[in-house]
C-alpha cells in the first residue's frame, strides 16, 4: 500500500521538483552546522566584493565573507523562523477553528471569527513594527509577528472544513454513539482535515520565508552578526551597481526555496485530492 502511494507521489512531477528544491535548502541549512566553505565570522577586507570564482563560487560580500557560506547559514534563520511561525499558527489556530466549528454561530464562534478578521487587518509587518518599537528588533520578534499572522489562517481553514464535516452522517453516528464534541473533533474531524492542514502548512512555510526576508531586510528581524537572507540583500543594496552578485544570489536562494515549497504544496494537494480542487477557496 505504501509502495503504491510512493509510486503515485513519484509520478507527480510538481511534487518531486518541489520536494527536491526544498530539500536542497533544508539540507544546506543542516550541513552548515557541521561544515561551511568558509567561516562566516571571518572578515577578509582585501577580498571584498569579489565576483564568483573557484575559491568563492558565489563571490564575496562587502566584508570579504564567502556568500555561499552566508547563504547556507542564513538558510537556518529563514527556515527556523518560518517553521516555528507555522507551528505557532497551527498550534493555536487549529484548536480555535475546531472549537468555533463545534459551537457554530455561538458567541465563542463570533468572537473567534471577529478576532480573526482583526488580525487579518494587521499584516505581519505591522505586528513586527509594534513589537520592535517596544522590545527592539530580533529574530524572535519576526517569529512572533509571522506566527500571530498565521493563527487566523489556520483557524479559518480548520473552521471551514470542520463545519462541513460536522454535517456528515458519520459525525451524527458518533453522536448517537454517545461521543462528545472533543472526542468527535479528535477522532472524526481532525484526521479528515489533516491533508488540508499539511498543504496549507507548506504554503504558510513559504510565505513565512518571504516575510522573514522582508522583515530582516528592513531591520526588524535577525540582527547582525547572525546571517540572514534579508539582511544580505539590505547590505547589497548600496553596492548593487558595483557588485550585483551580492544581491542576485541571496535573492535566488529565497526565490528557489519559496518556489520549491509552493510546488510541493501544489503537488501534495493533487496527491491528496486527485478530483481537482474541490475544497480550494
Amino acid at each position, binding site marked *: 500500500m505504501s509502495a503504491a502511494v510512493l509510486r503515485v507521489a513519484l509520478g507527480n512531477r510538481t511534487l518531486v521538483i518541489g520536494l527536491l528544491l526544498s530539500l536542497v535548502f533544508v539540507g544546506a541549512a543542516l550541513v552548515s552546522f557541521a561544515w561551511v566553505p568558509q567561516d562566516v565570522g571571518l572578515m577578509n577586507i582585501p577580498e571584498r566584493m569579489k565576483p564568483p570564482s573557484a575559491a568563492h563560487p558565489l563571490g564575496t560580500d562587502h566584508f570579504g565573507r564567502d556568500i555561499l557560506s552566508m547563504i547556507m547559514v542564513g538558510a537556518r534563520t529563514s527556515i527556523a523562523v518560518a517553521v516555528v511561525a507555522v507551528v505557532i499558527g497551527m498550534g493555536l489556530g487549529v484548536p480555535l477553528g475546531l472549537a468555533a466549528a463545534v459551537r457554530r454561530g455561538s458567541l465563542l464562534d463570533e468572537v473567534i471569527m471577529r478576532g480573526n478578521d482583526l488580525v487579518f487587518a494587521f499584516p505581519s509587518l505591522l505586528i513586527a513594527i509594534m513589537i520592535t518599537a517596544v522590545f527592539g528588533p530580533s529574530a524572535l520578534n519576526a517569529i512572533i509577528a509571522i506566527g500571530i499572522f498565521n493563527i487566523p489562517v489556520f483557524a479559518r481553514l480548520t473552521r471551514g472544513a470542520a463545519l462541513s464535516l460536522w454535517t*456528515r*452522517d*458519520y459525525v*451524527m*453516528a*458518533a*453522536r*448517537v*454513539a*454517545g*461521543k462528545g464534541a472533543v472526542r468527535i473533533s479528535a*477522532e*472524526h474531524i481532525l*484526521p*479528515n482535515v489533516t491533508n488540508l492542514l499539511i498543504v496549507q502548512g507548506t504554503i504558510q512555510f513559504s510565505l513565512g520565508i518571504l516575510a522573514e526576508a522582508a522583515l530582516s531586510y528592513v531591520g526588524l528581524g535577525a540582527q547582525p552578526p547572525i546571517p540572514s537572507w534579508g539582511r544580505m540583500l539590505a547590505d547589497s543594496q548600496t553596492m548593487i551597481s558595483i557588485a550585483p552578485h551580492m544581491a542576485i544570489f541571496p535573492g535566488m536562494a529565497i526565490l528557489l526555496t519559496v518556489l520549491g515549497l509552493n510546488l510541493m504544496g501544489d503537488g501534495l494537494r493533487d496527491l491528496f485530492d486527485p478530483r481537482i480542487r474541490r475544497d480550494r477557496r
Partner: protein
Amino acid sequence: MSLLQIEGLNLSIHSFDILHNVSLTVEAGQIVGVIGESGSGKSMTALAVMQLLPEGARAAGSVQLDGQDVLRLSEAELCHLRGRTMGMVFQEPMTALNPIQTIGDQVAETIRVHEKVSKAEAQERARVALARVELPEDRFPMSRYPHELSGGQRQRVVIAMAIALRPKLLIADEPTTALDVTTQAQILKLLKRLVQEDGMGLLMITHDLAVVADMADHLVIMRHGSVVETGPSPDLFRTMQHPYSKALLAASTHQPDRAAQPQEVPLLEVRGVIRDYATARRGIWGKPGTFRAVDDVSFQIRRGESLGLVGESGCGKSTLTRAILGLEEVQAGEILLDGQSVFTGHKANRAVRRRMQVVFQDPYGSFNPRHRVDRLVSEPFYLLDTPPQGAARDAAIAEALESVGLTADDRHKYIHEFSGGQRQRIAIARALIIRPDLIILDEAVSALDVSIRAQILDLLADLGDRMGLTYLFISHDLSVVRQVTDRVLVMQAGKIVEQGDTALIFDAPTHPYTQQLLSATPRLPDTHAA
C-alpha cells in the same frame, strides 16, 4: 420521420464505454420515459442529444433531431438548436439557476440569444413563459432572484427557460427527484400540459417506474448502457419479456415477508414533545424569534412494531429523530423508552441511548473514510460501560457483519471498497452491534436503486423477526412505507395530523393533507400487482 431518432448510439468517455448501441425514438406530442438504475446511461443519453457531454466524450452512431444529425453538427449549429429546437430541464433545481441574475432576465435570455428582439419584447415574452409555468407576474415578480423561490418554483423557472421558444423536443432529466411528492405531482402535471399545448416531444429520464407509468406513452428500459426493452405504456407493464425489466418492476413493488407480530407493550412513548429553534434576529437590536419545528407531538411505538413516519421536507421529521435519540433537548414534553426518560436533567441518559441506534440515508457520508470497518462498526460500544475487548470484541464484530450478509474478513477493509448497498449493510451492522431494541431508519433506503432497496428491505424484515427489533421507519416515500410498516404517522408542519394502521390510512385517509399526499404519490398500474 420521427422528431428524435437515436440509432446505434455508442458513447465512451476517456475510453470507458458508457453507451452501447442505444436506439430510441420520440414522436412529436409523445412522452417517452427512459427508466434505469444508476449507471444505466440514461442521463448520458439525454446529454448526448443535447451534445452537452462531459469533456473527453466520444459519440458514434446517429442522433437525428428533426431531420438533422446532431452528432455531425458544428458547435455553432448546435448552439442554434439548443434552447430553440430542443430544451432541457435538470435534476437539481437548487443549483440550476444563476444565483445572481433575476428570473426574468434568465428566461428572457433564452429569447435574446436566439432572436433579435428588443429587451422589452424579450421581457414581455419571458413574462408569458413564466405565466405558462404558473408563475404569474403579480405573485412572482420577474425581478425575483432564485434564492427567493422554493425548489418547485425554481424548477418551474428552469422549465420556462426551456419552453420559452416552444421547442419541438423537451428533455427532462429526473426533473422531480429532488422535490417533495406534492410538488412532484404538480411539476409532472405541468409538463404533461405543456406537451399537449405545444405538441412537443418529451424525453423523460427517471429512475422511478411509477413516475412515468401513468404519464409516458412509451417506455425505454436501460441497464448498463444498453436498451433492455421498449414498448408502449401502460401495456408494457403486462407484456414485459426481459428478465431485468421484470426484476425491476418486481423490486419496485417488493413486499418483504414479515412474520413478527407487535406486542401490546409500548417500547417508546413520546408525550407532548415541543422543540423550538431560535431564528435570526429581526433588525440589529431586535429579538430573536422562535420556530416551532416539533409541535406537541405524542405517539407510541409498540415492542416489535414497525412504525412509519411520513412527511415532506421541513415537516420536522429529522428534528423529532434527533430528539428521540437524545441528541437535542426538547422544550416541553417527555420521551420515554421502556419507561425511562431519554434525558435526565440536561444530560442524555446513557442507559437509554444504548438501546437505540440509527441508520442514515447517505451510504457515502455515513462513515469516516479513514477508519477500517471494524472500528466503524464497533463505534457504538462507546455507549457500554464495559465494552467487549479482544476476542469478545472480534466475535461481536464478526457476528454483526455476518448477520447483515457480509463476511468477518470485511472488517479489515476501508469503506471506499464497498458499494452503496454494502455500505448500507455495514450501517445496519453498526446499529445492531450493541443489540438495541429500537432502530430508527432515517430515509435508510431512499438513496438506493430499487433492486438494492428490495434486498435491504428484506434484510431488515428478516433481522426484525430474528432479533425482535422495533423499527421507526422515517421516509418521504409513501410506497415504501406502505410495504414495510404496521402503523404510520403523518407529519405536517411539526404536527402529527393523522396516525393509524398503515393499510387503513392508505386505503381511507381522513385528514386532507394525507389525502393530498396519497393522491400525489405516483403509482404503478395495478395490472401487475396480482
